[in-house]
C-alpha cells in the first residue's frame, strides 16, 4: 500500500513538473523549501543561474507538507526545512544523503498587525493578547504541524497567554497564509517570521518575540538520499557559502 502510494505521488509530482510552465533543464535541481524562504531563495537561485548554472526549480510550502512529499518519494534534490524536527523526521527514515545536513539560517518570530492598525502591545509575560484580539482571531500557521506555528505556540506558552487565545486561532496552512490574512485585515493580529513581515508592505510589526521564548529557529538544509542530480550538491554548497548566506541576510535572515 505504501509503495503504491509513493509511486502515485511520484507520478503526480512528475506530471506536475512536466506540465508546469517553467521549462526545467534536464539537470536543474528540484529544491523543496519552507514558504518563508520564498523571496530569498528565489533571489539566490537567480544569482546562481546568472553565473551560467541550470536554474534550480523551487517549490515552497509548509515544512510539514514538504516532509510528507519527501516521505512519499517526491523526486526532489534538496530540502530546506524551517525547523530541525522535520529534518530529524526524514533522517530517521533514512531519506537524507549522509553528511549533507547543515544548519543554514536562523530567524525571529514577530507579532504583526495590518498596516493601518494602531495597536500597541509590548510583548512580555502575561501580555493582554486576548483583549487586543477582541472578537477577532489570531492568524498563525497550524501550531500542531507547521514550524512557524510550533514556534509561535511555544512562545505563547512561555509567555503564559496560550490558554487565553488557543480557541481564537486561525490555523493557516503556512506562515505565508497567516501573513495574507493579516494583510487583508481579516485577522487583527498574526504571528509570522520577521522575514515574512519584512517581505510585506501591508503589515506592521507590533513586536518581536524574545528569542528565549521558543526553541531557536533553525533552518537546516540537506540533500536527499534519492537525489541523482549532479548540480544539486553544487547549489547546496553555494547556499551554505558566505555568498549564499549574504543573500539571505539581505532579506532579514540571520546566519548560523
Amino acid at each position: 500500500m505504501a509503495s503504491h502510494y509513493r509511486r502515485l505521488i511520484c507520478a503526480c509530482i512528475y506530471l506536475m513538473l512536466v506540465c508546469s510552465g517553467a521549462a526545467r533543464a534536464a539537470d536543474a535541481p528540484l529544491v523543496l523549501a519552507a514558504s518563508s524562504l520564498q523571496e530569498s531563495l528565489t533571489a539566490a537561485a537567480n544569482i546562481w543561474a546568472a553565473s551560467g548554472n541550470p536554474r534550480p526549480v523551487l517549490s515552497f510550502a509548509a515544512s510539514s507538507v514538504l516532509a510528507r512529499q519527501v516521505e512519499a518519494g517526491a523526486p526532489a534534490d534538496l530540502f530546506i526545512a524551517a525547523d530541525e524536527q522535520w529534518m530529524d523526521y526524514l533522517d530517521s527514515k533514512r531519506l537524507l544523503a549522509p553528511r549533507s545536513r547543515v544548519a543554514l539560517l536562523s530567524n525571529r518570530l514577530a507579532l504583526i498587525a495590518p498596516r493601518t492598525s494602531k495597536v500597541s502591545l509590548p510583548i512580555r509575560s502575561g501580555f493582554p493578547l486576548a483583549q487586543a484580539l477582541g472578537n477577532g482571531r489570531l492568524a498563525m500557521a497550524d501550531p500542531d504541524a507547521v514550524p512557524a506555528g510550533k514556534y509561535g505556540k511555544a512562545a505563547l506558552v512561555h509567555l503564559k497567554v496560550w490558554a487565553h487565545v488557543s480557541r481564537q486561532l486561525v490555523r493557516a496552512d503556512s506562515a505565508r497564509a497567516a501573513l495574507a490574512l493579516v494583510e487583508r485585515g481579516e485577522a487583527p493580529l498574526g504571528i509570522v517570521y520577521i522575514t515574512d513581515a519584512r517581505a510585506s508592505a501591508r503589515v506592521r510589526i507590533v513586536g518581536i518575540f524574545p528569542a528565549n521564548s521558543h526553541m531557536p529557529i533553525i533552518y537546516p538544509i540537506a540533500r536527499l538520499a534519492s537525489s541523482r542530480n549532479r548540480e544539486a550538491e553544487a547549489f547546496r554548497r553555494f547556499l551554505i557559502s558566505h555568498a549564499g548566506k549574504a543573500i539571505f541576510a539581505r532579506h532579514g535572515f540571520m546566519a548560523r
Partner: protein
Amino acid sequence: MDISQIILLSLKVSIVAMLASLPIAFLLAYVLARGRFAGKILLDALVSLPLVLPPVVTGWLLLLAFGNTGPVGRLLNTTLGFTFMFRWTGAALAAAIMALPLMVRAMRLSIEAVDRRLEGAARTLGASPTRVFFSITLPLSVPGILAGAVLGFARSMGEFGATITFVSNIPGETQTLPIAIHAALQNPGGEGIVTQLTLTSVALSFCALLASEVLARRSAVNKGHDHVL
C-alpha cells in the same frame, strides 16, 4: 482531531446550505424555465458561473465581497454585528454558492417537464394562476426539487476549494470533512485519520443517494406507475 465534531459540523453546514439555497434555487429555476425576458441568457450564465469557475476563485471572490473588509461584509458587520469570516456560516455560504447551479439545473428540468396543458386544464376548472402554481406546478416539480436538494447537499458535503479560501480551516467552525482530510493529509503519518474520514464521507454520500432513490420510488408508486409498464 475529533471525528464526530467534524462530521456534525459538516452535516450542519451542508444542511443549512441546502435549505438556504432551496428557495432561491427554485425561484431561479422557475424564472429560467418559464420566463421570457431580455437578459435571460446572462442570468443563466451568471447562475452557472460557480460551476465553471475554479473553486478557489469563487472563494476569493467571496472573500473580497463578504470578508470583514469587503463591501457586504462590512455592511453586515456594522448594521447587524454579523460576520461570515471564520464562522460556520461562512462555510455554509461557500457551500451554498457552489451547490446553487446544480440545484437550479435539476429543478429547472422538472419545472420544464410539467405539462402546461395540465395547468391550462386547471385554469378552466376555476383555478387562479397562483392556485395553479401551488396545486399543480409545484407538486409535479417535487421530484426535481428533491433531486436538486440531494444534489445540493452532496455537493456541499464535498465542498473544499471555496471554503478553505474564504474561511480557512477552523476546527469546530469551518473544518468540514474535506478540509479535515486535507489538514490530516498535510501531516506525515496522518493516513489513519484520513482513512476514517474518507470512509465516513463515502458512507454519508451513499446514504444521501439511497435516500433520494427511496423518495423517488415512493412518489412513483403512489401514482400507480408501477402498474403501468
